[in-house]
């Protein structure tokens, strides 16, 4: 008998239960209830976010597949397509950092190769609490090792991403994993279960009791009992996934199968129902045939298991033997567990008895959709008021402190734990504004970047959403790539709280506007709600993964200064904007104020201009101004240069000196050019109505920045470099 307690354990409301009974015309048994609890969970159903997500632009002439499949697909010419997606693995990564992050990598990779694409890029967007806490350090160490352990072994380069630190992530770290693959346009596979009588094959690892209720866990707030949830986290086996990847790509290279779907969140339940739903068919499976790792598993456990490295394939009837031979070659299980049926029902048998018999439509299409209550948060009024604060007495010291703040400091400690070079395509990884990966057998490269500043979004979610898109596109422009597609991971608190839903609605509004301005489609992504622990919600954290195209590899431009004596030009202008900046947070200990504002049209003009002058060969280096402002931007270009080339800059803006140096005004890019090219750039800028000004020169071995007649910063490159480079290794060094 299903009682209230069982419903609570399954995270279903009494209303939802009533609806289930009505839809299936009977009281569900426990296995059927388990299936609904998974597929109607926030994680699988998007029941709170759907009404808002429809505002995102999803169309574009190069879109082959938009939201709704395992991953989005964009046509990139030469008969090829890019398949990409971002997903969160936040909840498991807090409970068990290594395995949580590792299986996050495994899961997103399956989403890519299940479509027939060979993954060529991984990136991660990570958010942790401050590293002054031992717990946060151990979470970060575990997450980075997990990503490294899985990605390195399977042989897909992890090429950067971003890492931010904030108190709000202490009890709720974020692990967002992005993957991209390449597929021939005529070899794309979908999650289809067509053709009555076609066999359903189970391939890959055996099913165990791990990960039962993972998706449901990711759809609730954590309380003090979270340590007990450790058994809900799956355990990854990258070697098994590597075999599965190679076998699946061998199968999809030939005409052997109808459809394929990975068993990720919600395992067998999700793959069977989704495949049938998409084709308007039914599926029947026999659980006795499912390869099992443990003895005595119940139908409930098998249907809900989230054991990793498994796939479901609907094969062509006469090709089953060939499919099985390929899996045998890779020493993998490939077992027929059922077939495609007519009538749209999921039927599951176990020990000769039917244990599940429900309409697929009820599980997938008729899931309730909620229009949650919305309310402007009460914190906003005071949080956006930034009380007056003095300028630093010693700008050199403030500068060094900012360079060593973990959000700005060099992340080499993280990066070198990731194999970012395997597959021999990596032209740029972390350090550059965006990672650049060449596409073999063409003259093109893809650029990828992840971005999202949650403090901006907390204080002004619409602007935060706009800036996340704009900055990601600006990163692409700096390496010489034009944006072609977007995937997003929206990390928020509990959607049943009206203030959280307001943040969500406003953020989407901003993202949608920016994507329209830049003319880029959103091809999918992931929403992660319930990022609350013990009642504390994270800042709204939209993470935008944007993919760009470099049409000619010769155009690839980096952030590093090339030579001394090059001219430094600032595109855009400095403004008196200090609210929500890393400077105010680090130096004045305030996470407050109005974040920098953004004019999307102006932003677009500047990015287009940057791309134009790069394509004309006028640019030596380009770097976007972001956290830490102009001073940190200039310093990074110096640190990344081969000869640690210094710079001398003089700024004359009539605003506060700290705003000139550390303000995070948007729509700014610093470029360098050869002396003979700078006039051409300035003339072109005038022509295109882009603000461009010479601010100084590269050269010598010091960083010197003046404002008007006052020298604010004057410091050897080596000294600043040390602060930036040693900050994170020192935190983790064993003393």
């Amino acid at each position, binding site marked *: 008998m299903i009682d209230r307690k069982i419903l609570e354990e399954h995270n279903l409301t009494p209303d939802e239960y009533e609806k289930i009974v009505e839809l299936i015309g009977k009281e569900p048994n426990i296995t059927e209830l388990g299936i609904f609890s998974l597929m109607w969970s926030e994680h699988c159903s998007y029941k709170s976010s759907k009404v808002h997500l429809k505002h995102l632009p999803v169309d574009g002439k190069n879109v082959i597949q938009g939201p709704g499949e395992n991953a989005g697909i964009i046509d990139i010419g030469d008969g090829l397509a890019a398949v990409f997606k971002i997903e969160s693995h936040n909840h498991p990564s807090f409970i068990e950092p290594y395995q949580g992050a590792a299986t996050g990598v495994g899961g997103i990779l399956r989403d890519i190769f299940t479509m027939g694409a060979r993954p060529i890029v991984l990136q991660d967007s990570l958010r942790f609490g401050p590293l002054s806490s031992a717990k946060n350090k151990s979470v970060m160490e575990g997450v980075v090792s997990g990503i*490294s352990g899985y990605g*390195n072994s399977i042989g897909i380069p992890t090429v950067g991403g971003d890492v931010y630190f904030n108190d709000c992530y202490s009890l709720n770290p974020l692990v967002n994993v992005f993957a991209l693959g390449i597929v021939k346009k005529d070899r794309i596979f979908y999650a289809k279960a067509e053709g009555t009588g076609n066999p359903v094959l189970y391939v890959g690892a055996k099913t165990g009791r791990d990960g039962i209720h993972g998706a449901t866990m990711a759809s609730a707030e954590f309380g003090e009992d979270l340590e007990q949830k450790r058994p809900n986290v799956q355990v990854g086996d990258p070697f098994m996934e590597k*075999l599965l990847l190679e076998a699946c790509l061998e199968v999809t290279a030939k005409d052997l199968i109808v459809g394929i779907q990975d068993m990720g969140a919600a395992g067998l339940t999700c793959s069977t129902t989704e495949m049938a739903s998409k084709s308007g068919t039914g599926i029947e499976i026999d659980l006795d045939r499912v390869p099992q790792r443990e003895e005595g598993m119940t139908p409930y456990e098998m249907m809900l298991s989230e054991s990793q490295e498994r796939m479901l394939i609907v094969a062509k009837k006469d090709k089953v033997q060939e499919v099985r031979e390929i899996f045998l070659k890779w020493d993998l299980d490939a077992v027929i567990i059922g077939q495609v049926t007519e009538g749209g029902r999921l039927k599951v048998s176990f020990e000769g008895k039917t244990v599940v018999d429900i309409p697929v439509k009820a599980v997938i299409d008729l899931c309730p959709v909620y229009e949650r209550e919305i309310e402007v948060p009460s914190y906003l009024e005071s949080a956006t008021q930034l009380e007056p604060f003095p300028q630093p007495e010693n700008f050199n010291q403030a500068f060094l402190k900012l360079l060593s703040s973990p959000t700005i400091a060099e992340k080499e400690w993280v990066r070198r*734990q990731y194999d970012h*070079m*395997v597959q*021999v395509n990596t*032209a740029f990884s972390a350090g550059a504004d965006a990672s650049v990966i060449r596409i073999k057998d063409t003259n093109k490269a893809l650029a990828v970047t992840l971005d999202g500043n949650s403090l901006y979004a907390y204080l002004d979610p619409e602007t935060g959403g706009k800036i996340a898109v704009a900055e990601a596109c600006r990163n692409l422009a700096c390496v010489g790539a034009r944006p072609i597609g977007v995937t997003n991971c929206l990390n928020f608190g509990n959607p049943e709280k009206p203030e959280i839903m307001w943040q969500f609605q406003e953020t989407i509004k901003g993202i949608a506007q920016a994507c329209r301005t830049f003319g880029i489609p959103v091809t999918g992504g992931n929403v992660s709600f319930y990022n609350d622990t013990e009642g504390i919600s994270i800042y709204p954290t939209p993470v935008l993964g944007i993919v760009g195209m470099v049409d000619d590899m010769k155009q690839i431009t980096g952030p590093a200064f090339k030579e001394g004596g090059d001219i430094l030009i600032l595109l855009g202008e400095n403004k008196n904007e200090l609210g929500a900046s890393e400077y105010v947070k680090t130096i004045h200990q305030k996470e407050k104020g109005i974040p920098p504002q953004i004019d999307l049209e102006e932003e677009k003009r500047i990015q287009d201009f940057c791309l134009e002058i790069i394509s004309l060969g006028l640019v030596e280096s380009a770097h976007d101004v972001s956290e830490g402002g102009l001073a940190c931007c200039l310093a990074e270009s110096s640190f990344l240069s081969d000869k640690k080339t210094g710079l001398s800059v003089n700024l004359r803006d009539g605003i506060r000196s700290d705003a000139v140096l550390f303000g995070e005004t948007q729509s700014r890019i610093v470029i360098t050019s050869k002396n003979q090219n700078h006039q051409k750039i300035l003339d072109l800028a005038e022509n295109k109505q882009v603000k461009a000004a010479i601010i100084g020169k590269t050269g010598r071995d010091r960083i010197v920045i003046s404002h008007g007649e006052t020298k604010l910063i004057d410091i050897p490159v080596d000294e600043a470099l040390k602060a930036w480079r040693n900050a994170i290794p020192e935190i983790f060094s064993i003393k």
Partner: protein
Amino acid sequence: MIFPGSNCDYDTLYVLKEVLNQDAIFLWHKEHDLKNVDCVILPGGFSYGDYLRSGSIAAFSPLMQEVKDFALSGGLVLGICNGFQVLLELGLLPGAMLRNKNLKFLCQFVHLRVDNEATPFTNKAKKGQVLKIPIAHYDGNFFSPPDTIQEIMANNQIVLRYSDARGQLSEEANVNGSLESIAGLINSAGNIMGMMPHPERASEALLGSEDGRIIFESIIKGLG
């Protein structure tokens, strides 16, 4: 050669075929045929997931019997990264690998000093020449008992050493903590070499260095 879990197999083939225009093929671990090749390369990766111990299970692959016979009769065998670990497990090269001294996976460019240029794998380099080639491994901290390392040194078997950009050895340059800064090692007969750095990742300017080509070009030169 491809073991289950190899992941630099395609990279190595790509460099040999597309960059260096050589005739190169994959050999599958389950077969028993070396297909008349002149040189066998064991690629990097995580053969069998590196479970049990890096390279240990791959050493028992069916085709390894033929590779062993080929090597012991003087055939050229190069093991890169995981391939080096397999050669150690097979006993074709002396010593063993410990976890890196900082106990973390390390993926970065390093400098290597060529200490022995009179090998089929370095004959195009000069003694003392410094190469910029990346490493990517967890277990690359070379170790051996005192008598073994003495023998290695006496036979001039150390081919590549971790150094700084000017060819100086130091604890800092020896990133993974290897005994005698060993990055590349050859057998006493001079036909089997293992190296932890990945020359295939440093064979195109786009990727940051072309110094790795010297290893492949040396093999090609030796084979005529």
